[in-house]
C-alpha cells in the first residue's frame, strides 16, 4: 500500500531499522527520521497553512474531562488535506513494519495551535493503535509521555489535569523529526503538552492506524 498506482512515491524510505523496532517495543515510542525530504516538508507546510481556513473543532477524538477552571479558551481546530492523505497511505508500510501488525489507516489530521500548543492529558481512541506525529507548520514543543500513568482512565487523567498541584512539566518529553515522524503508542501511553505561546500559526500532523483484524 504505497500510494495510488502510477504515482511517484513520496517517501524516501519505507523500511524500519532493527534498532527502531527495538526502541518501539521497549518504550512505545520512537522517532523515524528521514522518511521524506525538505521539499515534501515544505509542501506539507503549505497545504497545512492553506487548509487552516477550513479547520473546525472535530466531533471525534479523545475527550479529557476537566474542571471549569481548567477549561481551555478554545479547542484545537483540525482539518485534513489531499497531500496529508497520500502520506498517510504511504506510511502504512512503515507502520506495519514497526509494529508487526496488519495496521490500516483510520484518519489523518492537521491540528492547529493558534495561540499556544497546549494538549490536555489523554490517551488516544481505538482509532489510533499507532499514531505517527510530525510538525506540519511553525514550531511545536515536545509531547510529554507518562508511562507511569499507563492504565489510567480518561476520568483519572482529567482529574490530574484539573489538579493545580499536578506537575505539568513532568513526563518524558519527545520531539518530532523535521522530515519524519515520531511513532507513539498513544492508546496505551498517556501524553500531554504543557503549552507555550506559539507566536505564529503552528500545527501538528497526526496519522492514525488500527489493526484490520
Amino acid at each position, binding site marked *: 500500500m504505497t500510494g495510488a498506482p502510477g504515482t511517484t512515491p513520496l517517501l524516501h524510505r519505507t523500511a524500519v531499522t532493527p534498532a527502531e523496532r527495538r526502541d518501539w517495543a521497549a518504550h512505545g515510542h520512537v522517532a523515524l527520521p528521514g522518511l521524506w525530504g525538505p521539499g515534501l516538508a515544505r509542501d506539507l507546510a503549505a497545504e497545512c497553512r492553506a487548509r487552516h481556513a477550513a479547520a473546525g473543532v472535530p466531533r471525534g*477524538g479523545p475527550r479529557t474531562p476537566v474542571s471549569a477552571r481548567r477549561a481551555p479558551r478554545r479547542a484545537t481546530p483540525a482539518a485534513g488535506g489531499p497531500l496529508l492523505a497520500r502520506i498517510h497511505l504511504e506510511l502504512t508500510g512503515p507502520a506495519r513494519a514497526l509494529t*508487526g*501488525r496488519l495496521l490500516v489507516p*483510520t484518519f*489523518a489530521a492537521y491540528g492547529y495551535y493558534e495561540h499556544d500548543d497546549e*494538549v490536555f492529558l489523554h490517551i488516544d481512541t481505538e482509532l489510533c493503535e499507532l499514531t505517527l506525529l510530525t510538525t506540519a507548520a511553525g514550531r511545536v514543543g515536545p509531547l510529554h509521555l507518562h508511562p507511569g500513568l499507563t492504565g489510567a482512565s480518561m476520568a483519572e487523567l482529567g482529574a490530574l489535569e484539573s489538579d493545580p498541584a499536578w506537575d505539568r512539566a513532568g513526563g518524558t518529553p519527545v520531539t518530532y523529526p523535521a522530515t519524519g515522524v515520531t511513532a507513539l503508542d498513544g492508546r496505551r501511553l498517556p501524553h500531554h503538552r504543557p503549552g507555550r505561546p506559539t507566536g505564529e500559526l503552528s500545527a501538528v500532523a497526526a496519522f492514525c492506524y488500527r489493526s484490520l483484524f
Partner: protein
Amino acid sequence: MDGNTGQALVIVDADGNYYVLPREVVQTAKADPASRAAIEQHLDGHDPVPLAGGYSFAGVLRLPPGSELAHYSPEPCWPVATTG
C-alpha cells in the same frame, strides 16, 4: 512456542532464505478472536499445515481491493477538553 522451549517461528522461502519471527512478534500479531471468520474468508482455502509448538500454517491472506480502507475516514479527530 510453549513455555521456554521455543523462541521463534521460522519460515523459509523457495530460495532457502529463513525468516525468524520472534515469540514477541507472533504474540503482537495475534488477531482479535472476533475476527476469526473474517480472516478465514480471505485465506486461500487449504487445510492448516502443522508447524510446531501447536502452531499451523493457515494460508496466505488475500484481501480484496479497498479492504485496507475499511476503517478509513476523511473526517479528522483531535483531542479536546470537556467540562461537565
